C-alpha cells in the first residue's frame, strides 16, 4: 500500500471490509484510542463501511477532552495576570473554562500567544525577561518529548522566567481503567500510533495478557484504520490476544529512545485526574523536583476556583466508550462546537466535535444504511 490513491481507494477499502466480513462470525466491539483516529473514522464513514456487528467505540485519546476543568480554570487565571505571557497551541484558545476561554482573555488585554512548537516559548522568554512566560503543556506521551526539551533547555540556559503548566496523561493506564470497569464493552483496541512512535508498545503487552484483549497499534489514514480493524478481528475470531503493529512504517516495539530518555529525566509519573473519568493512579506526568523552578503549578498561587460542569453532559461515558454522541440529549442542540458544554465537544479531536463536523447530528440515530457518502473514492 504505497501510494495515496491506494490508501484512499474505496475499492481497496472494500476488499479489506470484505475480508472482515468473510472471517467474522459474531459481533465485536473495538475501541480506537486516539482522537485523530476518531476523526478519520467519522470523516470517512468507516464505521458505516464496516460489516454489521463490528462496532467502533471512541476512546479517551483526546488530551484536551480529559484535562480537568480545574486545570483549565487555573490556566485562565494565570493568563489573566499582567506579568504573564501565556502560550499554548491554537486548539486551546476556544476551550471554555468555568468562565470564558483564552480567546476572551486575550480580547480583554491578556497576553495570550499561539505557538507552533514549545521551543517558541524559549524565544519569547529570552526576548521578554521582565515577563513570566508560561506554556500550557497539555498532551499525551506524543507531546512530552517536545515539552521536556523546553524545560530542559530553560534550566540549562537559566531562563528563570520560563515555566510550563503540566497536564500530561498516559494511554496505557486509561485503557486498563476502561477494561477494569464493570460496564466495559470493549473487546479489542486500535492502539495509538503516534504515542507509540515515542513510547514503543511494550507496555501494552501486559495489558493485553492480563485482560486477554487484542491491541493493534494503528495509524490514522482510512486504510490504516481498516487494516488495524481487520488485524483485530482476526485475533478476536481466533481467540488470540496479542499486541500487533499495523503502523510498522513509522514505529517499532521499543519506540524513540532519545525521546524517552529526555522525557524521564524531566518528568516523573504521577496520579492524574481525568475529566469525566476520575482519578487514575500513575496515569500522568509531573515535573521532577529538580525542575520545580519551571513548574507553573508551583510558581503561581491560584486560589481554588469554583468549577461548574453542566449536568446534561455525558462526556465521561463517551470517553469510556459506553455512550455515543447521539445518545446525548444536548448533542447538536444546546451543545455544538460554538457553544460546547463539555469535554468531547470542546476539542476538535473529541468524539462529539468529530460527529458534529461530519453532520452526524443531522442524521436520525445510527442508521448505517442511509449514511452520507464516504469521502473514499471508488465503489465504497
Amino acid at each position: 500500500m504505497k501510494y495515496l490513491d491506494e490508501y484512499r481507494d474505496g475499492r481497496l477499502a472494500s476488499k479489506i471490509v470484505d475480508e472482515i466480513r468473510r472471517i467474522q462470525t459474531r459481533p465485536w466491539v473495538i475501541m480506537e484510542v486516539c482522537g485523530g483516529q476518531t476523526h478519520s473514522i467519522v470523516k470517512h464513514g468507516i464505521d458505516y463501511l464496516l460489516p454489521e456487528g463490528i462496532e467502533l467505540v471512541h476512546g479517551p485519546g483526546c488530551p484536551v477532552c480529559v484535562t480537568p476543568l480545574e486545570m483549565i480554570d487555573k490556566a485562565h487565571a494565570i493568563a489573566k495576570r499582567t506579568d504573564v505571557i501565556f502560550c499554548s497551541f491554537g486548539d486551546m484558545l476556544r476551550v471554555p473554562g468555568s468562565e470564558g476561554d483564552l480567546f476572551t482573555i486575550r480580547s480583554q488585554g491578556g497576553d495570550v500567544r499561539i505557538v507552533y512548537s514549545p521551543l517558541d516559548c524559549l524565544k519569547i522568554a529570552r526576548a521578554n525577561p521582565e515577563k513570566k512566560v508560561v506554556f500550557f503543556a497539555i498532551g499525551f506521551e506524543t507531546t512530552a518529548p517536545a515539552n521536556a526539551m523546553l524545560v530542559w533547555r530553560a534550566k540549562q540556559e537559566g531562563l528563570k522566567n520560563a515555566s510550563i503548566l503540566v497536564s500530561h496523561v498516559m494511554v496505557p493506564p486509561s485503557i486498563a481503567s476502561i477494561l477494569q470497569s464493570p460496564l466495559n464493552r470493549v473487546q479489542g483496541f486500535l492502539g495509538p500510533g503516534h504515542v507509540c512512535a515515542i513510547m514503543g508498545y511494550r507496555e501494552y503487552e501486559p495489558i493485553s495478557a492480563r485482560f486477554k484483549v487484542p491491541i493493534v497499534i494503528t495509524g490514522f489514514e482510512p486504510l490504516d484504520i481498516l487494516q488495524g480493524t481487520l488485524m483485530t478481528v482476526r485475533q478476536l475470531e481466533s481467540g488470540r490476544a496479542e499486541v500487533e503493529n499495523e503502523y510498522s512504517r513509522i514505529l517499532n516495539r521499543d519506540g524513540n529512545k532519545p525521546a524517552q530518555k529526555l522525557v524521564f529525566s524531566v518528568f516523573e509519573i504521577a496520579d492524574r485526574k481525568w475529566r469525566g473519568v476520575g482519578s487514575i493512579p500513575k496515569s500522568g506526568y509531573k515535573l521532577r523536583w529538580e525542575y520545580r523552578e519551571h513548574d507553573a503549578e508551583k510558581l503561581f498561587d491560584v486560589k481554588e476556583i469554583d468549577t461548574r460542569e453542566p449536568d446534561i453532559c455525558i462526556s465521561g461515558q463517551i470517553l469510556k466508550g459506553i455512550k455515543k454522541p447521539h445518545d446525548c440529549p444536548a448533542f447538536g442542540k444546546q451543545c455544538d462546537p460554538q457553544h460546547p458544554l463539555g469535554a468531547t465537544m470542546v476539542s476538535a479531536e473529541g468524539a462529539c466535535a468529530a460527529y458534529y463536523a461530519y453532520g452526524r447530528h443531522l442524521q436520525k440515530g445510527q442508521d448505517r444504511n442511509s449514511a452520507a457518502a464516504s469521502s473514499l473514492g471508488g465503489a465504497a
Partner: protein
Amino acid sequence: MCLAIPGKVVESFEQRGLRMAKVQFGGIAREACLEYVPETQIGDYVLVHVGFAISRVDEDEARRTYELLESMDQLTELSAPVVSEANAAGGKP
C-alpha cells in the same frame, strides 16, 4: 493533539545548541527539531509533531500521507505564527 505531519528535510542547522532542520511540507516550510532523530540526513522524510521530528519515514509514505492531510484541511496547524527572536519581544503578534 497527536497530529503529526510528514515532511522533507531540506536544510539542517544548529540553533542555540540544538540540531534543527528546515522541513518542507508541500508548499510550506517550517522548522523542526532533529534532536530525537539524530541519524536524519538532508533529503530524509520525518514525521513532525509540534515542531519536533519524532520518527523517520520513507518517501512514498510521506507523499501519500501529505496529500491525504491536505485534503482533510489539517494543515491549518502549520499556519500558526512563526515566532522568532526578532518578533518575540514586546506586544502581541
